[in-house]
């Protein structure tokens, strides 16, 4: 049985044209490659620290 109020919560206001710019700037564009590179960067730093010690 569908509950109207519960279903209504799933609907969100659509973005209007004026809101498009803000939506673009606020969009999280972080992807798996960014995370990988960040992880590789940290791993490299860790190996360098170990070798230094």
């Amino acid at each position: 049985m569908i509950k109207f109020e519960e279903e209504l919560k799933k609907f969100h206001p659509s973005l209007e044209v004026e809101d498009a710019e803000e939506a673009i700037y606020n969009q999280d564009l972080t992807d798996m490659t960014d995370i990988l590179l960040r992880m590789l960067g940290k791993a490299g730093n860790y190996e360098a620290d170990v070798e230094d010690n």
Partner: protein
Amino acid sequence: MVCYHCGVRLSEHDFCTGCGADVSLYKRILAASNRLYNDGLEKAGVRDLAGAVSALKQSLKYNKNNIKARNLLGLCYFEMGEAVAALSEWVISKNIRPNRNIADEYIKMIQANQTRLDTINLTLRKFNQALSYCQQDSRDLAVIQLKKVLSNNPRYVKAHQLLALLYIADEEWNLAKIELQKCSEIDANNTITLKYLQEVGRMMLPEDVNWNNGKGKGNEDIVRYMSGNETIIQPAGRRDFRILTTIFNFAIGIAIGIAIAVSLILPARIKAAQLEVNDQVRAISEEMDTKTATINEMERRLLGLTEENERLAALLDEFRYAEIDSETSDNLLLAAAALVVGPLEDDRESLLERILFYMDSVSHDELSEANPAFHTLYFTILETVGAELGEMCFTSGYDFYRAEEYASAIPHLLRAFQYDPENDEAIWLLANAYDRNGETDKAREAYAQVIEYFPDTDKATRSQERLVELNITGA
């Protein structure tokens, strides 16, 4: 595919041939992104837009620089009516790859038509307003607003779904199903759509399902028909009642129309007719005034012509008098001239003879038609020398009378009485001359003149006696 470290194109090896970096994991990530893009492309091809959106979003989570996946995601959004979301994806795509990017054409296509952009924005605002109405529990207003949204953008899946949800809440199962079927035509495998369809299918009666699918005859006691996008369901007997109601309303409408015509239109028509009649009367009056003025002018001219005619007639009379009196007037004037100038040249007797000559030449018939001025002149001459002229004529006539030459005596005696009407002897001798000359009728007239002009005289008595004698004898 290039190395994330040095930018050299990667080979089939798990390391970069340029910098030696380990790219095995990086290549797997990009491969996963591409795989998800392919999955999204396949789903979009069979109109599973929601699935395509989900796969493409996943693809972009693996690789944000997957331009194809981002552009396709924008297209899927646009197809579902989410124009702003589509624009956002395309703008990001264009920023990542400014050149040779089909997203640029998509953006230009939307921005080139400002009216279309305004319509899209207005549609989105109305949807948000409808959502707000739903949250305020104003379902009727929300339905109206959503219908407007869908009339502007029939491919707006979210609006169809919300409208279907409202119909479900109002237990309008058929209408909800119609909206959901429209959703399915756009987005074939949308989870929300399928969920609502399942609910609607469960709640609808078997005969309703059959009717809606066109497989059954339906309930004979129920009449269904479409009115625009609305499905009207009503009892079978209601239609006849509606026909009667329609006829009744039509009759009332005619009655109201007649009443309006009588109360509003008819007075206006009457007034217009009166104004027209007034205009005609005014025109006729003006015409009559013109004709009256013409008649007055004609009468005035007639009066003037009559006066002119009279004046000309009088002038003509004057000319006629002058013409008639031409010879008589000459003699009369000569007599007057002789009377004025004569005493200085001749003796009295010669003068009288000359005047008598002229006066005898005056025609009494012409003188009677002559100008009154000639009459005055004639009688002035007679007053001056009439007695003397009469005496001269009487002397001549008396001489002939004594000589018993009565025929010769008559003209002289006649002129003697003419120039001197006081001479009773002249008229008495004239009567006797006529009598003795055998002119009895003229004698009677002469005797009658004696009796008339000289009554109570001896001559009158004798004239009376002679008249008696003449009457007795019958001569």
